[in-house]
């Protein structure tokens, strides 16, 4: 009993520590693309896997976002610039994709009160909040919102800092006047089997890209103004002018549920108390993989979206109701888990067989109990 109390106390202390806002607002969060590699993490720029992935259509990139305090971040994701909880910064999908390094940085002079008074940090937050709701730059043509307000993740961070009067990319664009700056670099690609990729980075007011010279450049790359380029986020430039934040863990984080925030799984979220609970994740995966892509599934979702928010509100108010709903959800989550692990039809076969066997056993037992004692 005593041991249990001690163990529970330790668990509670760790839980409280884990939930405490560990970073100063304004910290730039970033995470690796694969393994512990992030573009430019070392002085030698490396694109170890990203270019290969781009050739085969799967570009895994690192990510950057801005911590705004109270456990929240603002970052640019595919759905646009959003504000979300910081646990959504490195998602389960990122971790499953091989990312395992996360860091946090602040400008080199961030602790200097004369250079960074509170109102300047407030201004940083203000500008970041203003961008929420804008487009993501899906083609990497603009990145920092030039013109129409399209951002990549790192472009957003850079823009916000720039508007607050700090250039986190002094080697970057807007330098060198009209036409921007060009810069040639060699990117070592260890897994290509071809020669290194020689890239020319061009940073101008309207476009940031890297044009690579490589045998595969005509097969890969993106079309822009009649030429083929390899566009990529310039995360490495964050590195040069920032220092690790005081609480930089340099360790994996648990990973959130996704980039869009808000699960839509209202009842499960209310019952488990968090949209990033693993049980909710299972249901969300099922929803996205099976319900959302069929007309019947979508019809179910519409009805569910209509009546579930008030029900979820009711559930969230009472611990007892939450517990009861969690029990009721067990078969649903078990079914969802089975489907996600074994696939839809395999699961249907397994469930049908199980129901069939249970039915046969049930009816056999009923028939046996209905027979007169003498006939047994």
């Amino acid at each position, binding site marked *: 009993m005593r041991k249990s109390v001690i163990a529970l106390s330790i668990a509670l202390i760790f839980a409280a520590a884990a939930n405490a806002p560990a970073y100063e607002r304004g910290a730039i969060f970033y995470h690796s693309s694969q393994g512990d590699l992030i573009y430019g993490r070392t002085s030698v720029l490396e694109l170890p896997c990203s270019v290969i992935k781009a050739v085969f259509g799967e570009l895994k990139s690192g990510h950057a976002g801005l911590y705004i305090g109270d456990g929240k971040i603002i970052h640019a994701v595919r759905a646009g610039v959003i504000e979300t909880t910081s646990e959504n910064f490195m998602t389960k999908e990122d971790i499953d994709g091989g990312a395992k390094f996360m860091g946090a940085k602040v400008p080199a002079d961030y602790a200097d009160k004369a250079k960074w*008074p509170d109102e300047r940090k407030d*201004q940083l937050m*203000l500008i970041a909040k203003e961008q929420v*709701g804008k487009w*993501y730059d899906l083609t990497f043509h603009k990145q920092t919102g030039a013109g129409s307000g399209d951002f990549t993740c790192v472009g957003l961070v850079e823009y916000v800092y720039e508007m607050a009067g700090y250039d986190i990319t002094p080697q970057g664009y807007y330098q060198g006047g009209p036409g921007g700056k060009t810069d040639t670099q060699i990117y070592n690609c260890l897994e290509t089997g071809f020669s290194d990729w020689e890239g020319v980075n061009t940073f101008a007011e309207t476009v940031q890209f890297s044009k690579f010279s490589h045998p595969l450049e005509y097969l890969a790359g993106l079309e822009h103004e009649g030429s083929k380029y390899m566009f990529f986020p310039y995360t490495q430039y964050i590195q040069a002018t920032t220092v690790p934040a005081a609480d930089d863990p340099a360790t994996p984080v648990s990973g959130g549920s996704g980039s*869009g*925030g808000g699960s839509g799984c209202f009842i499960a979220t209310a019952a488990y108390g968090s949209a990033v609970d693993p049980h909710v994740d299972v249901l969300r995966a099922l929803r996205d993989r099976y319900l959302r892509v*069929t007309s019947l599934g979508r019809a179910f*979702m519409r009805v569910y979206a*209509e009546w579930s928010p008030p029900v979820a509100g009711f559930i969230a108010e009472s611990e007892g109701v939450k517990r009861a709903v969690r029990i009721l959800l067990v078969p649903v989550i078990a079914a969802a888990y089975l489907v996600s692990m074994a696939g839809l039809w395999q699961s249907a076969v397994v469930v049908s067989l199980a129901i069939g066997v249970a039915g046969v056993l049930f009816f056999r037992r009923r028939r046996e109990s209905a027979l007169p004692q003498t006939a047994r």
Partner: protein
Amino acid sequence: MKTMALFFAAFLLAILSPGIYAASEQPQADSDAAVALDYKKDSGERIQAIQRMAAQEEGDAAGALISILLDKAEEQGVRASAARALGEVRQVGSEALKALSDVFREPGVEPNLRYTILMSIGKLKDVSGITLLKEAMAEGDPMIRFKAVQAMGDLGSAEAVSIISGHLDAEKDKMVRAQAARALGSYDLEASHLCLARLLKNDSEAVVRLNAALSLNRFSSLNAEARSALEAAGQDSSIMVREAAKGGKP
């Protein structure tokens, strides 16, 4: 228990249903609207199509965008993209504003979708949007109030100035007040000069005074009250406010 069983049955039926019904409903053309509406496609591809639709001059895109926005089965990111695009498409009718307002008031709707809707209402520059923005400014979530005030700045209606000014006295959140100062900077009117001068002189938060000074310096000419507030701000306790009062940028 019966309800639970029915719910479970409906849930199972929904996930086990084959997608053949859906396939027959899909538009065959490769137009951006067809890609945007095709829920079997990758959401990134759909968002890109929606983004292209936003740049279209004619209002043809509005119908498809409204239908995506209103569909509760859509991914929140896709809905938010449709909302964003509606703020940018030219010649959208009053249905766009109605759809945006309806979704904004939908129970349980994701906060980022609501923020995007407020931004779009500002960009629509339809004065009828003021009703929803006023409603949003009375909400408890400071970020909703922040985006509503920001949208007021984009709206381009003089009525927004009196609404923002009236709201400032009750507003407790400094970021919302600072955003209000920025929004007032979009209106070169006597009323906004006075309100900004008042903020610059009296607000306790440096970030609010900073943005009031920045906004006043956006105007080509100032009234006496505003000029005097800017002069006094030369002695402000914050160096950033002092610099901004002199016309400097952060």
